[in-house]
């Protein structure tokens, strides 16, 4: 598996990361190196091994259905550059 420049630019756009032409050119071989290295792992036959989802042998913890949080609006919007009337303000996005 390998990526070309178009794919790199698309992924960058989907991730909202600004990438210049020069950076994209540099990223192509860099990413392909990583992909090539990961591909080596495919040489190991693990068709009979359960996929490992976590390194800690643990069970998913569940929470009771109780309200224990909230009412911290000031903290929630503290970093918002354009909060108004308790809302976050963002550039107008409309369909």
């Amino acid at each position, binding site marked *: 598996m390998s990526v070309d420049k178009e794919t790199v630019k698309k992924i960058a756009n989907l991730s909202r990361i600004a990438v210049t032409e020069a950076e994209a050119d540099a990223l192509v071989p860099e990413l392909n190196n990583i992909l090539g290295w990961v591909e080596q792992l495919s040489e190991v036959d693990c068709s009979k091994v359960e996929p490992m*989802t976590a390194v800690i042998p643990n069970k*998913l913890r569940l929470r009771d259905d109780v309200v224990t949080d909230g*009412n911290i609006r000031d903290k929630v919007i503290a970093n918002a550059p354009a909060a108004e009337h308790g809302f976050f*303000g963002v550039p107008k996005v409309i369909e």
Partner: protein
Amino acid sequence: MSMTESTYRIQGGTGEWEVVIGLEVHAQITTNAKLFSGASTEFGAEPNTQVSLVDAAMPGMLPVLNKECVRQAVRTGLAIDAQINKYSRFDRKNYFYADLPQGYQISQLYHPIVGEGKIEISLDEKDPDAHGKTIGVERIHIEQDAGKLMHDQHPTMSYVDLNRCGVALMEIVSMPDMASPKEAAAYVRKLRSILRYVGSCDGNMEQGSMRADVNVSVRKPGDELGTRTETKNVNSLRYIQQVIEYEAQRQVDVIESGDEIVQETRLFDPDKNETRSMRSKEDAHDYRYFPDPDLLPLELEDDFIFDCKASLPELPDEKRARYKNVLGLSAYNAAVLTAEHETAIWFEELLETTDEPEKIASSAANWLTSELFGALNKMGLSIEKSPVSPQQAAELLGLIADGTISGKIAKQVFEIMLETGDGAAKIVEEKGLKQESDTGAIEKVIADVMAANKDKVAQYRGGKDKLFGFFVGQTMKAMQGKANPQVVNELLKKTLGPAG
């Protein structure tokens, strides 16, 4: 089972077209707290007051799964005869939008909690069994809802309220088994009824606790499936039907003019009654799903599933069958009384006032669907808010059954009950509405009526048998409607003798 509506067709220039419909219903799970945080889910709070730092996606915050969301999804799955997956997992669905601070929605793509199930729908309320169809459900998975954007509060900005962000949803994905707008509406109606019986979702479409993504494609009868479009977030039964009608016609027009249908996401505009392409979301389909590393797989124990099953109430289909077969109700009454859980609960409370419910079931059902529904409709009240309790209704029906009052007087008594909240027996006593069944008193009135209408008596005896109703009317009028109509009839027949 046959279904006349499956013959729904679009008439195009090149002939008839079939419509194929699949629905993805998003149902908000009824819980106190959100899916992965301890913030409240209550509707209508001040903006951003029901937001935890987890919901706001502050760095380092970790999700912890709400057990009740799991329980309700499993109960819902069991209620539609679905496979429960003892192993399920959460995945990240990545996209950027201002209503989703995480930059991804936690959902279940690869291993949903509920697998294939089915829902029986009906197109004929009066005789549901005669016009039924089975609609397959492909899966149900659990996921997070997004926040809310408001576009009309500021000239250049959109406002973001994250109160809904992180609230638990079930996405219930149907098979493409529906073939007309009416079938789609019947499916949503039935699904809503089941969710409300189960208690896993309040089914409130106006508040957005239930909304549908509508998948529509068209094909010539017998052909392969056509390319589908998906119209997002449709929030009423009427709109769902309008979307299908509009989309089907649009697609036929596009294909017949020589173009192709593009698989895309569309938006419904109820004001213009049309769907529009959401071009800005083209990229959004590249969601780059991957397993959420913050959450371990969800593994369910047999005991947990067993307890979920045991906690289910009698569901609408079973209940409807029992009302018909055990209580002897008409197919129509059985369907109407079981469609909403609250109605069935009310009806059953009424039946609980007697040891022999089969005896009063039919008359109670008739009274409920005509008198009570009529009154509630007029007052704009739901049955839970009925000013007359099931026990009070039983008292009223008892007075009719034992002949104390006539059905006609019962209507009057019911009116007064609604106004005053008084019991039926008390009203009948105080207003002197008790029905007169004493033959002596009625005979006396009949004699008076006949004496005052000698000409009509002669006509009747001369063969004008239609006058019988006149004598009944006069007698009832003279007794202010309180005479037992059966006794009046019998006595009149005896006194007047045969007509002609």
